[in-house]
């Protein structure tokens, strides 16, 4: 389990980067993915569902989509010339049956 931290971009869900000064705002950056459960995972999960407990396949799916949407957000921030994204939020919405969107958004800033 590796946190989505890339060395050149500081990510935080605080309003500022503690101990650093924000010198420029670049505005909203965001990234999203829509994920669906594939059949193989569904079958394995429904078996595991009989006894309950953690469904690892689904946890991994969630992990992948969070990493993906974060990476897209970071790519946007990098394109703007930012070196940090502050006030990051994750949000979800169900697009269709069996598919869900994971949306990451934040404010790209330059810190000194």
């Amino acid at each position, binding site marked *: *389990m590796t*946190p989505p931290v890339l060395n050149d971009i500081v990510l935080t869900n*605080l309003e500022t980067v*503690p*101990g650093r000064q924000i010198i420029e705002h670049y505005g909203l950056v965001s990234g999203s993915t829509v994920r669906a459960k594939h059949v193989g995972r569904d079958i394995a999960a429904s078996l595991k*569902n009989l*006894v309950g407990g953690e*469904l690892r396949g689904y*946890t991994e799916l*969630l992990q992948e989509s969070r990493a993906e949407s974060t990476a897209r957000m970071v790519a946007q921030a990098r394109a703007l010339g930012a070196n940090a994204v502050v006030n990051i939020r994750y949000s979800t919405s169900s697009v269709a049956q069996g598919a869900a969107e994971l949306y990451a958004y934040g404010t790209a800033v330059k810190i000194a």
Partner: protein
Amino acid sequence: MDDPNTLETYDWIAVALVYGLPILGLIFFGFIGAYVERRHYAALRIREAATARLPIMTARTLETGRLVADARLVATEVMISHDYFKRFLAQLRNLFGGRIRSYDTLLDRARREALLRLKEQCPDASIIANLRLETLCVTTSRRNSIVGVELIAYGTAIRYA
């Protein structure tokens, strides 16, 4: 010729299979599910004791005035599901309405597990600030659907200098 209204042995076998198997399944998976849950709670208590030193707060700003050496986003996710027996209980409860007790432990386990994973990601942090919990879905009790809770927990891990 046999009286068509009396049940033959093989009819009884069919009746036993049709009604007996789901009930057997309920009992069997209910016991396994209860065991899995007890074991999870035991593990949660041990891990919580081990990470009790690292506080989590929902406040967005730090007012301690201490020097911060490092701040970074930490995030984790967990998906935990119900067992067959508890799902059956919940469906039953759906008919009459009211509090569904069997969901209490499900949500409790998922949230505690998520917070623990968050803490275990940053053992060297001093505090985790601005914790957010995003619950994805408690799937409805449609037939053959997965019933469970998906959680995303995230916050900023801060290490004081």
